[in-house]
């Protein structure tokens, strides 16, 4: 066990620094602001620091270490070129307040990304500012809010969210002050058009939809839903977290949406880094464009001596939308993530469709392989599809309810059993509409061999008896972690000796 606060070397610093420009004793501070005790930080030399974090990393699972079929998270391979590009000083050492003529290259990339996302989504204008999907949602909701305010439609206080939606959807709408109308979904998580009809009226500002939905099914009534909402003057919002399933095959624009966010880090692969950073650009139809947070990038032909700074025939400049809601992040969003995603996009170009096709191919194949292996092993009685469908999109669900009932094996047991087989577990117990749910998203970057092997190993886990599985995992750095203990005995920082 390597613990950071166990390192208590001599006074000094882990990496040498240059001298100060003036002697330390020349510094005078207001007396009451002089720090009395330095933070009780540990003292490590570089060798110790490197070893500590190497040790920690080896106790962590990532896509690089194995298959990561975590549904709804799109854990695809992160091309290594992206990391190289993001460290070029022309992005890493850029200050957001530098003038336009210093950063024509960067702005041209931003513009290309705005354009590409608009093309893919069928929207008219994109902003790259939101730094995560949830912030994209919030930003779009605020734009819609201001749009209605500008039209005097102050009565629109409601946002409709299907109960199968991701938690950020209602949370984001609520943060903007909307009342959340949760409508129940059909059994397969899809929109219940009748339930929708029952709640719509002119107090509805927005409906938020994820398509394919969280069960991995395409909302085939989506146009009807759009029509219904639009018929009462509401707006349609597309949660783009599942864009990986449909890119190039349909678009939110075609489905009638007015606004959309992209989880750029999912669809276009900014490494998720243990929970972030991400990037959540939004695209909107023309009527919402002037409400977007500024600045966004627009281009125009170069004039005068601009050529000496320009990267092509155009000038890329900041543009402030006229009725902007203002900012949702102080700077220009997660530019470093945008750059990585640009590199990712460039690798596919118009072939982005191949990416989503393979994502869907792999999901369907994995579903097929799991059923196939279950049949071969005679354990097909242990799970059923989470939703009855001919095809899934980029992810799918299974219900382990039969295993639970017949053998006392829960989805959580199976998840922990999979950890012992060297896999990251699929998402469990989400969405709630599927009992004992496991949600699988293999992504396009897994080979058929991996999918076949996983299917076999999944069945191997199912064939273990309940007692064995309750004990799982046994091969991991720690065994089942007591989350209740953690909550009851809150220990949120290192307890120093005097505590």
């Amino acid at each position, binding site marked *: 066990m390597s613990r*950071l*606060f166990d390192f208590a070397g001599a006074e000094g*610093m*882990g*990496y040498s620094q240059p*001298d100060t420009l*003036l002697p330390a004793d020349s*510094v005078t*501070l207001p007396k*009451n*602001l*002089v*720090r*009395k005790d330095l*933070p*009780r*930080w540990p003292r490590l030399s570089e060798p110790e620091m490197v070893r500590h*974090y190497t040790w920690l990393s080896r*106790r*962590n699972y990532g*896509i690089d*270490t194995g298959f990561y079929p975590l549904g709804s998270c799109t854990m695809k391979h992160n091309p290594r070129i992206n990391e190289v*590009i993001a460290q*070029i000083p022309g992005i890493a*050492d850029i200050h957001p*307040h530098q003038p336009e003529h*210093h950063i024509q*290259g960067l702005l041209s990339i931003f513009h290309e990304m705005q354009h590409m996302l608009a093309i893919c989504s069928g929207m008219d204008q994109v902003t790259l500012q939101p730094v*995560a999907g949830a912030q994209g949602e919030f930003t779009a909701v605020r734009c819609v809010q201001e749009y209605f305010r500008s039209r005097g439609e102050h009565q629109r206080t409601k946002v409709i969210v299907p109960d199968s939606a991701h938690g950020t959807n209602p949370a984001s709408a*609520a943060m*903007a002050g909307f009342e959340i109308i949760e409508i129940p979904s059909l059994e397969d998580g899809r929109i219940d058009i009748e339930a929708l009809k029952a709640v719509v009226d002119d107090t509805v500002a927005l409906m938020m939809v994820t398509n394919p939905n969280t069960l991995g099914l395409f909302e*085939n009534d989506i*146009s009807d839903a759009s029509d219904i909402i639009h018929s009462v003057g509401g707006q349609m919002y597309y949660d783009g977290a599942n864009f990986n399933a449909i890119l190039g095959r*349909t678009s939110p624009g*075609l489905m009638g949406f007015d606004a959309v966010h992209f989880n750029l880090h999912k669809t276009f692969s900014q490494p*998720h880094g243990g*929970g972030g950073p991400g990037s959540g650009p939004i695209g909107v139809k023309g009527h919402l464009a002037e409400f977007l947070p500024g600045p966004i990038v627009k281009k125009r032909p170069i004039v005068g001596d601009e050529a000496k700074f320009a990267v092509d025939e155009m000038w890329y400049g900041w543009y402030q939308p006229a009725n902007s809601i203002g900012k*949702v992040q102080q*700077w220009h969003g997660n*530019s470093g993530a945008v750059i990585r995603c640009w590199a990712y996009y*460039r690798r596919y*170009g118009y*072939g982005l469709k*191949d990416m989503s096709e*393979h994502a869907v*191919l*792999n999901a369907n194949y994995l579903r097929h392989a799991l059923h196939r292996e279950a049949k071969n092993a005679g354990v097909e009685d242990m799970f059923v599809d989470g939703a009855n469908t001919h*095809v899934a999109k980029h992810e799918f669900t299974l219900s382990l309810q039969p295993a639970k009932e017949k053998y006392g094996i829960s989805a959580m047991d199976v998840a*922990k059993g999979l*950890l012992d087989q060297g896999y990251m577990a699929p998402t469990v117990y989400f969405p709630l509409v599927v009992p004992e749910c496991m949600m699988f998203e293999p992504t*396009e970057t897994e080979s058929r061999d*991996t999918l076949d092997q996983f299917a076999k190993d999944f069945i191997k886990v199912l064939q273990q008896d309940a007692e064995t599985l309750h004990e799982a995992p046994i091969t991991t*750095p*720690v065994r089942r*972690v007591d*989350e209740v203990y*953690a909550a009851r005995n809150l220990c*949120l*920082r*290192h307890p120093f000796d005097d505590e």
Partner: protein
Amino acid sequence: MVDQLPNRGLELEMLEEMGFSSIDDLFSDIPERVRMNAQLDLPPPQSEEEIIADARRLLGSNLAMADVVSFLGAGLYRNYVPASVFQLVTRGEFLTSYTPYQPEVSQGMLQAMWEFQTLVSELIGLPISNLSLYDGSTAAAEALTCAVRVHNRKATQKDTVYISELTPPDRVSVMQNYCQGAGIEIKYLHHNQDGTIDLSSVEQAAGSCGIYVEQPNPLGLLDGGYTKLKEIIGENTALIIGIQPISLGLVEAPGNYGADIVVGEGQPLGSPVTAGGPIYGIFACSKTYLRLMPGRIVGRSIDVDGKEAYCLTLSTREQHIRRHRATSNICTNETLIALMGAMHMSLLGPEGLEHLALRNITACNLAKQKLGEINTIAIPHSSGSHFNEFIVELPASAADCLKYLDGVGIIGGFDAGRWYNGRKNWLLVTVTDQTSAQEIELLAAHLAVWSAGVIA
């Protein structure tokens, strides 16, 4: 070309095994009406070599701060991130992991974040830290809404918070966006001529849900008056302090002078400026706010064998459980950048932080001294102590001055007229540990030349 898609070339085999005959079959559930039939109107795919060449060409054309002489800061600070940080943070196990929903195989990141919480907690002098928010501005905004959630019941000025009038407008804009939905009104605290907070205006804020001030403040000033703030506003109003973390190597931890919530841009510790993102927002607070605070938190626990183990905790505050009643909508955060912060702090150690703070403040003092010798310009708040930056009052507009300096290869600072009405002659000059004495001399010389020219 297989490249990123291992199953390229195997499509038909896989489809046939499933009983399909084409990829189209897999998309048969998309109604005709919404199908995209044409190819995406985008350029052809590129190879890795071509992409990297384009990236080098386009990003290489940008003028990086290190390419010139830069005095631009105003919230983000040039720094040096030790080489080991990049090499460790890009280890695949960290880089390519997701939120640690399965703690048994995520102990590395969980422990690192728990250690991060401790490092931040010690730095700012409060017991609780989350494991990052998006940036300093959203952390500040979340602090305001959090303060209202906690204090509104007892507040006499309900749904009201006060922030320093010096707060940069872009940051205020973020706050406004976060607050307006919750129906929170933002009022302003005033500052004295010398840049320090006007304590009488703080008195007005008593009874509100919280006040937000920055230390150093946006003018770079270290304000000794802050130690009186908590007493003035009282227990039922949150004292929220925005900090530059490196300054805390010299400056008292806000938790020690009454801060209830401390927020800030973590960037100077561990992250390059990167055009403003990804960076990470620090959010720390006292116990009072724990159950209503935003963001993920890691707790130390045990496994079934009683072994030390870490996991996410207090998740019932979060959107994936509490949905529209969550304390925040945040899901994806800035864990990886916070990890870089933790690594940087680990290498610094207490003395390293102190020295880094000293480098920043002495460089700033040297700049103040050198620029103070130019009699065609003024330093309006020169009597105070500054960290990282200070205002220079020019004989003409900062915008013009910056244009002139740009022509001689100097990014001269930030035009504070973009922040403050009527202050178009204010130049905010930023100096960090990366600034050399020669660069300061160079700026001084050019400012002297320019301002003399303007006056003449």
